């Protein structure tokens, strides 16, 4: 099962699309003069041809307002400001091919004189292939032997030369709009301490990738949004997932230094593979900072290819790590406890609904995934965070910086 994935610029002559016989649906990123404005994903019969004319009608009915919005953006371009001094950082662990692909996209789409540097943080490498890949691409390289993504991120904050650190995962490629989006967001929000961006699917070739994207993926819409410290909603700012994901985020280095860097108990490799980004968003906002979601700061992410890997992601990255993150803020930030409780209640209700729908076979989230997420959540609630803290402290002694 795979989907046709395409990008359509509505300012250009429209193509006609043809689904292969193994494609059971299609997804399209709609652009206007390059600017991403809308995304569709829907099932469709294999072998269908969507004519340019049909496509035009669909764009008119479905994305007309989104296109209008883009046109308005073009009519009054934001004021030009000097671009921020950014270190683009890719933390990677033993995936040199992906890293090479990511670096190539940066080379292609990010202007030479844009960022202050591109830096690869090689996390606990088993060999020197990552070093070779970085050197071939001609970017800065640093090795961090203490395992864990957040350990690598902390190293990046220590090593980066720019005032800003832009984190990209090694399994993303940046879009041509990414750098411009970051510069515009920075110019429009000079007070912001960080930016998150849009994450679109890189491929929808397997069932797992389609399932992930149908669940909502990492997409966070096409509207710029500011997230500041004032609590405006019943569960804000505990629900930092609304901001985006660690695969595409930018922070002011001083702001993160001020709040003590990344928590190495989270995003700690297989031991606790998620939550680091949520925790960082949360602490920056709670510390009085402002984060901005910028939809044109676009990257494409290659989702897990196999159902087993996706199920693991449900169990560990979402179920277990989300709960570990919630336990952490519940224990460390008494002021927001009622919000955490409300968030937990919401999560339970939502998962319960998925469970009941999955048992009736009426969802695109298989039952085994829901159960995996629940299992992970239980483990996350039962001591996962304190365990991870002990492990992180042990690693710090083992690998002193």
């Amino acid at each position, binding site marked *: 099962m795979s989907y046709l994935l395409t990008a359509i610029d*509505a*300012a*250009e*002559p*429209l193509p006609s699309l043809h689904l292969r016989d193994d494609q059971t649906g299609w997804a399209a990123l709609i652009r206007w003069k390059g600017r991403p404005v809308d995304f569709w994903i829907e099932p469709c019969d294999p072998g269908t041809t969507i004519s*340019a*004319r049909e496509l*035009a*009608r669909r*764009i*008119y009915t479905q994305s*007309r*307002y*989104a*296109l*209008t*919005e883009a*046109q*308005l*953006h073009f*009519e*009054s371009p*934001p*004021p030009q400001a000097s671009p921020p001094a950014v270190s683009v950082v890719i933390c990677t662990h033993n995936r040199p091919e992906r890293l090479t692909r990511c670096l190539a996209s940066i080379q292609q789409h990010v202007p030479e004189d844009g960022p202050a540097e591109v830096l690869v943080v090689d996390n606990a490498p088993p060999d020197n292939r990552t070093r070779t890949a970085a050197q071939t691409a001609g970017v800065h390289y640093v090795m961090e032997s203490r395992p864990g993504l957040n350990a690598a991120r902390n190293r990046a904050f220590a090593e980066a030369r720019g005032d800003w650190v832009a984190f990209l995962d090694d399994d993303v490629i940046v879009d041509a709009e990414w750098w411009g989006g970051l510069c*515009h967001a920075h*110019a*429009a*929000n*000079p*007070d912001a301490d960080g930016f998150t961006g849009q994450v679109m699917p890189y491929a929808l070739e397997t069932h797992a990738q389609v399932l992930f994207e149908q669940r909502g993926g990492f997409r966070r819409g*096409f*509207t*710029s*949004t*500011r*997230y*500041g*410290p*004032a*609590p*405006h*909603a019943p569960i*804000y*700012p505990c629900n930092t997932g609304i901001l985006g994901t660690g695969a595409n985020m930018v922070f002011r280095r001083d702001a993160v230094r001020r709040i003590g860097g990344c928590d190495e108990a989270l995003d700690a490799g297989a031991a606790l593979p998620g939550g680091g980004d949520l925790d960082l968003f949360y602490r920056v906002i709670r510390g009085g900072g402002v984060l*901005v979601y910028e939809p044109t700061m676009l990257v494409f992410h290659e989702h897990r290819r196999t159902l087993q890997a996706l199920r693991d992601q449900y169990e560990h990255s979402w179920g277990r790590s989300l709960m570990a993150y919630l336990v952490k803020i519940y224990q460390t930030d008494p002021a927001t406890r009622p919000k955490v409780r409300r968030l937990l209640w919401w999560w339970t209700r939502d998962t319960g609904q998925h469970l009941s729908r999955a048992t009736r076979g009426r969802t695109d989230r298989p039952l085994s995934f829901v159960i995996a997420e629940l299992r992970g959540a239980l483990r996350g609630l039962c001591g996962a965070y304190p365990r991870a803290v002990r492990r992180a402290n042990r690693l710090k002694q083992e690998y002193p910086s």
Partner: protein
Amino acid sequence: MEHPPEALPRLSGSDGAYVVFWAHGIPLGHRLIPSSALPMSPAMLRAYAYPAIAPAVAHYNEQTANLRSTTDTIYTNTIDTDTIDTNTLSAIKHLLQNPSRLTSKPRYTSTDASVVICTRDRPEHLAACLHAIAALTPAPAEVIVVDNAPQTDATRRLVATRPGVRYVHEPRPGLDIARNTGVRTSTKPIIAFTDDDVRVDPQWLRYLCAGFDAPDVMAVTGLVLPATLDTESQYLFEIHWGFHRGYLPRRFDAAYMKAHRSRCVPVWDVGAGASMAFRRDAFMHVGGFDERLDVGAAGCSGDSEFWYRLLANGWTCHYTPMAVAHHTHRATAIGLRRQLEAYMRGHTAALLVQYERHGHPGLLRRLFVSLPKYYLRRLVAGALHGYQGRYQTLAAEIRGALSGVLFYLRTPAASPAHPFTGVETGAEAGPVAEHPAPAKSASQAT
């Protein structure tokens, strides 16, 4: 939006900002911006505005068919070029500079209109209301204040100080009675209504009148924005009830009626009594406001019942957001509860009145199926929320809905449904006809 944008400052002591975006005097959209997003730079405020105004901008631009962009290659390989157009703010300006594009031929202007304000012992509200009416450009042909069963002569004295405003005394209490009196008193082909707690924009009447752009349009309604959102009650009312019907014009016609009749035609979507106008003919064709409804009687829905009657008789109602008025919502929790109780009372009574007149089964379905289901669900949800926030008015709403049914059963249908023949001669204010002709039945429609 046509001016260089401004920044939105941090607000102390408020939970956020309700920002309405305009271009060339036309409201295009609004955003409720939480305080966590403030302060905000001019560029960011624009980014917040665009998604809110995009539908209205697209709409107004589609009316300017000859403003096609040279860059608009979107449909070059199709022949559907008439479906999409460039969407620019400057096109709105064009549109306004060529009003003929807005209304093919303005049938009526402000000088064809009487403005009727019904009030009761609220001279300080009325004074501000009249102040805004005096600023209307162009000025209306006449302004009539109907003083409804007043306890004092404060309203009379106030109106005496306003040149050009007619004062009419209506001793029988009831908003719809007062409105009917206003209709009979007025002399012009268009009768516009507003309330004493409303401030109209200077262009309000002009756009309301321009809304009568086809012979079958009998009613035009306008956009009602909140004047202030200072208290939780005002916020709750605006978010969950409100008079706001969006930034896109809508036409409600016989086809709309037909499409919704099997359930219940949501006539309350047509507009709000705080900003509405009718052709004088409307009252000749379908009678006056039903005096069993609205403040002083059931509590509400006299206006929407009238729209229902117009639609059922094949006429058209036109909502035009370009006609803007600002309403001051009730500031206190007790005021909001009373208001919503009256709303639901008027609503259920109006459902029964409409059923009595037209016999559409969807009305009973709403009364006996949809509403009970809705309130059961909200009772459960309210229990989880401790009956806070929007659930604090739940008891009042249910009480109102029940008492509306009782009110209908107890009140005889003695309303003057057709006292309006001969009004075009400009009858003076006088006692209401006691036993008017029976209501025209729906079977006579179209």
